[in-house]
């Protein structure tokens, strides 16, 4: 029994000695260890606190307007700060219509681009184009707005809108006088801003399709398009829709660029050539200048509405994307690349 002692030679090993010193200095080391744990959990909880702060500040600011107008706030179409009448319907209308048009334009383009970058385009071109799409996502909103204001809107006013009116003027959406700044201009800018996001999501989704599915279709003699149509797209349909809805969530919150081109008029017109207004834009334009208590409160309620709308849309998107199992599954390719880095 007596000779059953740890071999003293292992203490000479540098690693073991270091380990001993680390584990056995009970006092300060343990306190530091626990302190780190508290810090980490505190940081995690601070995210919850951040959400609480957001909800609380918005609710507190909007309380007066909520009490005064109730649900009528969301369905009244009169917004006249001078007369003290506040209704959010024109902003809700502008936000939803511009975002919906943007999504209608952006979604097919994004999916088609994703298809071309994963399947159709020459392999040598894929990486550079993908890099451009990534750069596009990094362009700040205000830069898009600047370009749209000075280049796109004049072009729309002089060329595109008259053209549309000439050939589709019988539709109610393309009637009325042309100012350039309009709901449609806002929608176009939003579309340009959400395409890179939806595209890169769609690429990730398309790459998640198991290779065996593609190979099975190839083996049956399918052409590239048929592989897409028969094997790939059905497998990821709901995820792709989810990516689109995520783009919609982004579109609803787009602020600066839209404010610069949408015309900022709180009225509801059927024509897309008419100026509009969005929830985010009215905050940009009026928040700093709101002098009366009730105006400010109404603007806070606009903010609350915007948060609620984006929350619902984003949650829906997440549900749709998660309905496909790949988001839960580990992604072996990336894990390998991490491991080799050491």
């Amino acid at each position, binding site marked *: 029994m007596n000779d059953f002692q740890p071999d003293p030679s292992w203490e000479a090993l540098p690693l073991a000695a270091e380990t001993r010193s680390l584990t056995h200095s009970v006092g300060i080391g343990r306190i530091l260890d626990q302190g780190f744990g508290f*810090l980490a959990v505190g940081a995690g909880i601070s*995210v919850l606190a951040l959400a609480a702060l957001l909800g609380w500040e918005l609710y507190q600011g909007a309380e007066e307007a909520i009490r005064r107008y109730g649900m009528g706030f969301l369905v009244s179409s009169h917004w006249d700060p001078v007369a003290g009448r506040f209704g959010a319907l024109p902003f809700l209308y502008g936000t939803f219509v511009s975002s919906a048009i943007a999504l209608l334009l952006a979604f097919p383009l994004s999916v088609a681009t994703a298809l071309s970058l994963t399947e159709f385009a020459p392999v040598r071109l894929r990486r550079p184009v993908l890099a451009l799409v990534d750069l596009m996502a990094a362009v700040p909103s205000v830069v898009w707005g600047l370009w749209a204001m000075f280049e796109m809107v004049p072009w729309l006013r002089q060329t595109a809108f008259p053209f549309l009116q000439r050939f589709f003027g019988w539709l109610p959406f393309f009637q009325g006088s042309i100012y350039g700044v309009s709901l449609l201009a806002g929608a176009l800018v939003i579309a340009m801003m959400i395409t890179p996001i939806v595209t890169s999501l769609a690429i990730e989704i398309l790459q998640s399709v198991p290779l065996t599915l593609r190979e099975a279709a190839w083996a049956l003699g399918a052409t590239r398009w048929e592989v897409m149509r028969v094997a790939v797209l059905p497998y990821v349909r709901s995820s792709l829709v989810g990516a689109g809805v995520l783009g919609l969530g982004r579109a609803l919150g787009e602020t600066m660029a839209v404010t*610069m081109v949408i015309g900022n008029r709180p009225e509801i017109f059927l024509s897309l050539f008419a100026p509009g207004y969005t929830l985010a834009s009215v905050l940009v334009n009026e928040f700093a200048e709101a002098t009366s208590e009730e105006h400010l409160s109404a603007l806070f309620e606009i903010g609350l509405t915007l948060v609620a709308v984006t929350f619902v849309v984003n949650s829906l998107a997440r549900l749709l994307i998660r309905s496909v199992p790949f988001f839960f599954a580990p992604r072996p390719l990336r894990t390998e690349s991490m491991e080799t880095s050491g």
Partner: protein
Amino acid sequence: MSPLPSPSHSKPHSQKEASNEEGADFRHFWIRKVVDRFFQILSILAAIVVISPLLLVFVFLLSSGGSSLTWDFLTQLPKPVGETGGGMANAIVGSCILVAIATVIATPVGVLGGVCVCEYGDARLRAAIRFTADVLNGVPSIIWGIVVYSWVVLRMKTFSGLAGGLALSFIMIPLILRTTEDVIRLVPSAYREAGLALGLRRSQVILHIILATARRGVLTGVLLAAARVAGETAPLLFTAFGNRVWAAHLQEPMAALPLQIFTYAISPYPDWHRQAWAGALVLLGLVFFMSIVVRTLTRDRSR
């Protein structure tokens, strides 16, 4: 063609049957090839349409903002309304300060939050934090401007660079948290087990093994978040507010490049428009530079 019930099917089929047993399939093959080619061209056209606005923006900024991008523009303060000339030096420096404040606040909170989601707390807390971070990532940035306005600006009774930095950090925190979480998940759990088997404490395993392995990914996440907020205008409108002179300290309104671009763009003065274009060029250059740094970092990782 003849008004037979199924003209396209019966007639060519019988004709080709003599030469080829699978004539029907070969007859369709042409159509299938054409359809395939059609969709290929369509998708490539779509890709061109998608990236063309980026090129248009770039060409526009270079052609109209390039000439205004002078040394004066980078080093001078804005001139009073009506005078031509002057620059955006204070806005460029202001933007850097604001992003620095935001990064300093958001990095520890975001990274530690990511550690918390992966390593600490019970499952319900982790799920709640992850869900909340996702929700916060979807909140439009202008909302943070309003929240910080009513939380900080109203209390301090002044717009300030500090409030602006805080608003930007609130955008960065959930972004950094999610990317940190993602890269920590990629660290093989064998590494963690090896550390624990050596008798390291949890915090030592996290700091010396997990974060050390994932540091490049974490850095990428922080840089991406910083690049994202560097271009933000909306949260600064009611917090940093903008300033036409140097801000003496952080409790004063502070200029920022995106803010200045916005103010100049919606102004009626042609000279200010020119400066807005030049400013946008600088901003775009900054953001692209950061994205390219991130890109090289991630490319090294896969090597």
